[in-house]
């Protein structure tokens, strides 16, 4: 009884078109999900690096009083007794030079008097009043500034949220379209087979008997479409990654203050190949099949209930 297929749904147009439609939807869903996940992961890694941290920057001695070491020690003393500052670590001069290298050129960076940078780790439990700290730092060594990357992080988070929201909208729409396609297929299937369904009813078939044929049909087609979509999406994502890795930026010159393609490239490179991304992608066809089965069953039973 489970295997019965009196309606020959397999011969309907839906058999050819539903998998295609669902393949496209799953493809788009995979793209959107990967985009959202990797934007989130990318930002999360920056967050982990930057949140709860701050940088203190002491200008080179030429503009102030005292030697470089004196000024640094004055600041370090202050920081060590500031509650909430868990750790303060001067950045080695060579690292500072390397940070500036892309902007000044190697020779220039090596030759210029460098500012002193101190990395801070801040306590999560005991928030530091950065405004007061800044004042006290100015006293300890005039010209000293503190930057907690808040602005940077806020920008990055806005951006990540934009990507995530856009991906979310796309995902919702894609699921909506998939459900629409399935319900549409089921409705037209019911219309095409209306007479046969009436006959089945009249000779004693219960609604379940008919719904089962539709839900199995829809589920199977969605699974097929989902697999096709996921295979194509994986291929596309890997292709994109390969392309970007092949031609992407290294550490060379050329950058700009408002726009760094390298950042976006890194975003795409990081995309979609962690275990979470793979799991989401591999689950998509089954999710599609499940959605299709439920959508089919629900809409068949709803339509049948309105039949005499």
């Amino acid at each position, binding site marked *: 009884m489970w295997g019965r297929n009196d309606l020959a749904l397999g011969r309907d147009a839906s058999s050819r078109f539903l998998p295609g439609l669902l393949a496209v939807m799953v493809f788009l869903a995979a793209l959107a999900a990967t985009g959202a996940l990797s934007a989130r992961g990318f930002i999360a890694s920056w967050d982990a690096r930057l949140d709860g941290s701050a940088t203190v920057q002491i200008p080179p001695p030429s503009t102030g009083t005292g030697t470089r070491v004196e000024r640094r020690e004055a600041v370090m003393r202050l920081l060590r007794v500031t509650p909430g500052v868990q750790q303060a670590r001067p950045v080695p001069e060579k690292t500072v030079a390397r940070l500036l290298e892309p902007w000044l050129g190697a020779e220039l960076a090596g030759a210029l008097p460098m500012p002193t940078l101190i990395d801070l780790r801040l306590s999560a439990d005991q928030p530091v009043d950065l405004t007061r700290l800044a004042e006290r730092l100015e006293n300890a060594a005039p010209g000293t500034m503190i930057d907690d990357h808040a602005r940077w992080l806020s920008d990055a988070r806005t951006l990540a949220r934009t990507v995530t929201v856009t991906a979310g909208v796309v995902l919702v729409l894609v699921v909506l379209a998939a459900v629409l396609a399935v319900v549409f297929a089921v409705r037209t299937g019911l219309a095409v087979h209306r007479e*046969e369904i*009436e*006959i089945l*009813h009249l000779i004693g078939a219960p609604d379940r008997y008919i719904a089962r044929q539709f839900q199995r049909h829809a589920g199977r087609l969605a699974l097929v479409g989902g697999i096709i979509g996921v295979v194509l999406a994986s291929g596309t994502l890997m292709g994109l990654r390969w392309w970007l890795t092949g031609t992407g930026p290294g550490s060379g010159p050329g950058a700009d203050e408002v726009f760094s393609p390298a950042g976006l490239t890194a975003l795409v490179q990081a995309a979609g190949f962690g275990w979470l991304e793979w799991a989401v992608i591999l689950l998509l066809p089954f999710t599609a099949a499940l959605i299709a089965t439920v959508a089919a069953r629900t809409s068949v039973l709803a339509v049948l*209930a309105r039949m*005499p």
Partner: protein
Amino acid sequence: MVRFENVFMRYDGGPVILRDVSFRLEQGSFHFLTGASGAGKSTLLRLMYLAARPVSGQISIFGRDVTTLSRRERPMARRRIGVVFQDFRLIPHLSALDNVALPLRIAGTRESLIREHVPELLAWVGLSGHLDALPATLSGGQQQRIAIARAVISRPNLLLADEPTGNVDDRIAVRLLYLFEELHKMGTTVVIATHNENLVKRFDHPRLHMEDARITDRSASRSASAAAATTAAGE
């Protein structure tokens, strides 16, 4: 077996088809249902096979009030009723054999039993050469005979046939009527709607005649009904 009590029936905005009709058909009875075209024969049968509900009144079948039957209860009741529809209603993509086997399959009958009984019955209605034919490849009369075979295959307790011989000549019609007689002898209650006066005359069964939204139960076809009197080709 079948009991109508004060049944009132009309379709939305249509003419009254049954006005306060009460009657009962005993188990194992055999009736012809006659009346002019549009008198309501198909409607009466539809009420009996639960495809329509009366506006008011009670209809009991197998001793149960079917007007209050829930959607979940109807399938089981329907499995005990065999119906030959006026327009056949075969499933187009199923072969003759599969169409006839359908009620058995829905009821969960063993496949071996199906393979045994279905071809036998199709042979009786003269279609042994068309077991695998799709309905569209069969003539009108052949389709009608498949519809009849499907209605009787599960040996229903109640058999309703709507103009079951409209597309066959009288020789075949008589043969089909014998099939119904056979079931009747095994205890099935039979109601056959027909315009074919020849048949009604030949088989000596009581007649339910529909006229003016009422039903008259006449014990034999001999009594000259209004319809019979106006028959163009009377004897």
